[in-house]
């Protein structure tokens, strides 16, 4: 729903922006915990993609290319310690976090459980977290996840299995 109207867009990049900007920023924010930095990363990725647009073998591959760039950008930001403390910084800078007041109709218990689960997810090793976010939020196939992360399908299975096992253990502890 939260997509730019595509009615009057011209360049393919603008069409891609219309459909991919919001989900890509959300993906990067889920992985990084810093919305402002996530927007920078996706913006850079789109600008880089524009420069290579003519070299794309298949325009339909633009989304996959962009996603790889975004994931790489996130990993690069993490490697360079741009985000020293993802949680603290996100809480301090992200206005959406400041008003994370879900609807009054949402049971508080489920909300707390979700918060615990996402916190546990944030504590997982990078690869496991990436695989789980790409799988359970972006709803990507195994092949797409492998392509996005530059790893084998077998590794995707392994990271997913370990990540879920860790979350299950964490949930067990909490209950």
């Amino acid at each position, binding site marked *: 729903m939260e997509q730019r109207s595509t009615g009057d867009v011209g360049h393919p990049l603008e069409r891609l922006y219309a459909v991919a900007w919001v989900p890509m920023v959300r993906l990067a924010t889920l992985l990084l915990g810093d919305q402002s930095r996530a927007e920078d990363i996706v913006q850079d990725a789109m600008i880089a993609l524009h420069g290579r647009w003519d070299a794309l073998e298949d325009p339909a*591959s633009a989304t996959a290319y962009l996603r790889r760039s975004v994931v790489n950008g996130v990993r690069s930001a993490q490697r360079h310690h741009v985000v020293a403390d993802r949680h603290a910084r996100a809480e301090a800078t992200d206005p959406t976090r400041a008003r994370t007041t879900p609807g009054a109709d949402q049971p508080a218990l489920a909300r707390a459980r979700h918060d615990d689960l996402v916190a546990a997810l944030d504590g997982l090793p990078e690869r496991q977290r990436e695989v789980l976010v790409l799988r359970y939020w972006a709803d990507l196939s195994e092949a797409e996840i492998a392509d996005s992360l530059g790893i084998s399908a077998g590794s995707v299975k392994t990271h997913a299995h370990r990540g879920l096992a860790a979350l299950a253990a964490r949930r067990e502890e909490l209950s």
Partner: protein
Amino acid sequence: MSQFRDSHDNSEPTRQPGDPDVTDLEAELRAALRERADQIHPDDRWTEIEMSTTPSGSSRRWPTVLLAAAAVLAVALGAWVLRPTPRAVAPADPTPPATATSSSPPPSASSSAAPSQSPSASPSATDVEPVDPFGGTVPVYYISPEALGHPESGLGLRRAWVPAVTAEDPRSRAMAAIGLALDRSTARDGGIKPWLGVGVTDAKVADDGIDVVLDPAPTARVTPEVGSLAVQQLVWTAQAAVGRGNVPVRLTVSGATSVFGVDISQPFTRPARDQQHTILTDLWITEPSSPTSSEGGGGVATRGQTLTVKGEASVFEANVQWELVRSDGTVAENGFTTATIGAPSRGTYEFTVTIPQEGDDYVLRVFSSSMQDGQGELASDTFSFHVL
């Protein structure tokens, strides 16, 4: 949650063997991530991306020849022809982003209409607006009810394009626009004139900001809400008239340190986009538009014409309703559309409407209704036109 999948990849997501606990965990993880993601509302950065990918000087400015032709036709018809309003264009002297990865300034923490007073705020290309889409006009922000005709719906700023005879340099345009903003009031908008009796005596436009000198100090007694909006009214007008983005604006008012109770010792900037709902009215029609539309004037359309309507919205669930109203008050057509993002962020919307074969005068109305009873109107905007 298939929003993110490549259109050419139809394979299913991976599945683990059906351990009930794992399945339950998977479902919960999906819900938790969706909940977290739904709370992330990215700012619009298309302008920044476009500026970084468009060769200098090739911005899609509306061709001058078309503007001239439209103006001639408008004069001939005694009204303004419905035609596209150009997209936001780069300013004549654009301030490029510091780097391609420059961060947006953090949004104001204010949850009220308090003006954003931040000398360190950097100009944002997101705030770049059309400079003069009609030729011979200046942008003027003015205070208006959220829902037209319903002062109880709250107040905010709207923008009008007002014809003005002025030189083209930024200082002249700023002075002309601010002068009009000080005196701006229309019957449609409830006649709110906090700056009554105040004039603009000077404006200095530099790369790092705009200085506006006013005299005398205002004497109107207004509520804090109106006072804050009155200050922002001049800030937004000055920035729009100059066309250099969100540059700081300093107000000097006869030696006063505050106006309407608002401290003016520091320059002002516009708040971040996701806070602009505290300043702007929630619904705007930006296309079609005309220099008289804010005063109930409008344009000319032809029978059977498909009219593209565009605007900005900060409404619940991004739900924008619209109706085409005949001169007798009956509704000829109606519908709804979805903005690019819901409140509190400010998105854009677009829809088309076909002009009926019968009838001579119509009002196009976009509005947002209360979710509680579907009756109360929270925000609206209108555009009137005559059918040939």
